[in-house]
């Protein structure tokens, strides 16, 4: 029952501002796809175009093979979850969830008892059984978002669209809801698109991730694709806390400021950009075969320790991830080598 969503040359401008600049995307049936990108990259506009809340300037949207571009919001039968919940304040939780069923035209509207039964089932699904009589203001943020999801699921949508669903919640609740959303998705099997600017959330939760930038899609792939094989400099720089270093490539040597590092890749030459993440650096066993770098700051991040390294004049500081028990101190000089090299020719 899950359907595929296809966007063909989809574009949307608001006056002179282009929000979505003609993009193509295929969402597989039953897939959980994250739309990841910085704010203003067009991911929310894309989601609203799929929902029918915005009209595209150009392009088409297909639900399976049916052209949905001209269908109104209500005809598309999408479940939409808003960042700030958008619950109906004047209705209690049960009435919120039942809304989509009650507004149906009489022939397709379920009987009252049936509506009540469906609402109860959904309340159980979102783990809010017994809270049907509460009003939205009497719920926590996480509970409200679950009501919003139940309300969206009540209309048996063909696809589920979530706009930064956990954006307004605190870290702990986010993590719980993330896992729970994955479970609900696996159980209900809807094709699901969700917008986020949190890469950890996108990479952990989604089957595939579409990385947005400037109204276009830079790359679509699994978490492994995005993290290990970034297709563009933007993706390389956006995920994994990467730092961009301007370098010069000559043969099999990469020149980073005053230092040089060996590379195996042969398809890059001349001025280039090297993207390094904290875990790309390792402390060299042999002090002679690495880059000497001065430690300018040390901080503790979760289970690990991070040291900020100064590589040379004009280069941005980079971070190295060390074991928490590493005896590094500010002012030390570490000799480091790169174990992963992510290199792109400068444009």
């Amino acid at each position, binding site marked *: 029952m899950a359907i595929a969503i296809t966007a063909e040359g989809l574009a949307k401008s608001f006056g002179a501002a282009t929000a979505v600049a003609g993009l193509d995307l295929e969402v597989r049936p039953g897939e959980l796809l994250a739309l990841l990108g910085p704010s203003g990259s067009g991911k929310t506009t894309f989601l609203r175009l799929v929902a029918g*809340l915005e009209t595209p300037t150009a392009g088409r949207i297909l639900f399976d093979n049916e052209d949905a571009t001209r269908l109104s*919001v209500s005809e598309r*039968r999408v479940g*939409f979850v*808003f960042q700030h919940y*958008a*619950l*109906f304040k*004047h209705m209690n939780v049960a009435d919120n969830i039942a809304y989509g069923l009650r507004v149906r035209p009489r022939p397709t509207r379920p009987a009252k008892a049936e509506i009540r039964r469906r609402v109860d089932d959904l309340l159980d699904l979102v783990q809010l059984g017994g809270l049907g009589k509460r009003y939205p203001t009497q719920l926590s943020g996480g509970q409200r978002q679950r009501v919003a999801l139940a309300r*969206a699921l009540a209309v048996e949508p063909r696809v589920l669209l979530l706009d930064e669903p956990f954006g307004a919640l605190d870290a702990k609740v986010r993590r719980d809801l993330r896992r729970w959303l994955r479970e609900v998705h696996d159980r209900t099997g809807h094709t699901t698109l969700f917008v986020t600017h949190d890469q950890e959330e996108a990479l952990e939760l989604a089957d595939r991730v579409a990385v947005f930038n400037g109204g276009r899609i830079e790359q679509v792939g699994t978490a492994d694709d995005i993290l290990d094989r970034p297709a563009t400099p933007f993706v390389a720089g956006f995920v994994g806390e990467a730092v961009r270093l301007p370098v010069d490539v000559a043969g099999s040597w990469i020149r980073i400021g005053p230092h040089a590092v060996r590379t195996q890749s042969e398809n890059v030459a001349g001025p280039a950009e090297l993207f390094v993440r904290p875990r790309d650096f390792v402390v060299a066993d042999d002090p002679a075969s690495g880059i000497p770098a001065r430690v300018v700051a040390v901080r503790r991040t979760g289970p690990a320790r991070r040291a900020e390294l100064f590589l040379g004049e004009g280069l941005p500081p980079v971070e190295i991830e060390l074991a928490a028990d590493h005896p590094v101190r500010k002012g030390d000089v570490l000799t480091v080598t790169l174990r992963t090299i992510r290199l792109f020719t400068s444009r």
Partner: protein
Amino acid sequence: MRDGGAQERGALAESRTVRWTLIALALTFLALFLVLPLLAVFTEALRRGFGPFLEAFAEPDTQSAIRLTLLVAAIAVPLNLVFGLSAAWAIAKFEFPGKSVLISLIDLPFSVSPVVSGLVYVLLFGAKGLLGPLMSDWDFKIIFAVPGIVLATIFVTFPFIARELIPLMQEQGTAEEEAALTLGASGFRAFLTVTLPNVKWALLYGVLLCNARAMGEFGAVSVVSGHIRGLTNTMPLHVEILYNEYNFVAAFAVASLLAGLALVTLAAKSLLEWRHGDALAPARRH
């Protein structure tokens, strides 16, 4: 207010003397300019006892003035309700060219003197006015007749409801309506089940203010009415006529009715603010 020395006062608190002087000043002002005149209205009305007071209302002209005032309000308020709702809906929920012009136009009646508002209709529909000949061809009287009074009242009172709703609806945004649409509701259904319940108290508040002004309007109505007794006299105009005829008891009796209306409005308004203050914000503070 606890007894406290200088140490306990917040940075913004004034000394006790200043505080009480200001309060006394404000209360004196209120007493002089609001309470005293109001009391005067009622004492003048009841100067000769209840008999003459009630007799004033038995007068056919007075009764017709009351009827006309009710009729005008009964036409103007619902029309402005529809207009105010649609204008607020359009302004708060949609982007369109000329939106700021529309907002300024809605405020126009607040900035124009009511007399000018009335004159506009005389210049438009009067015997020598732009559309005057057309009106006499059709044998349809607007000026010095009830339609003119209704028009002038609508003009003067039309900002009340729109102004009450616009800030509230803007603050509420469009997310709930969009949610209703994605759940399969039609636009009209979304309006009825989501937008309207969210603004109902503000709407009632606006209707209250609009009604008070519609019944009390003098200037604009005076220009277009022609003061024909029993035909085109509203209550405020009737008060003036009675007063000019030295019929003080009757004048103040009718005036006391208007004052009573004002008090009821005030009470209802306070009740609304007290019970549903959150639902009125941010429009509540005037």
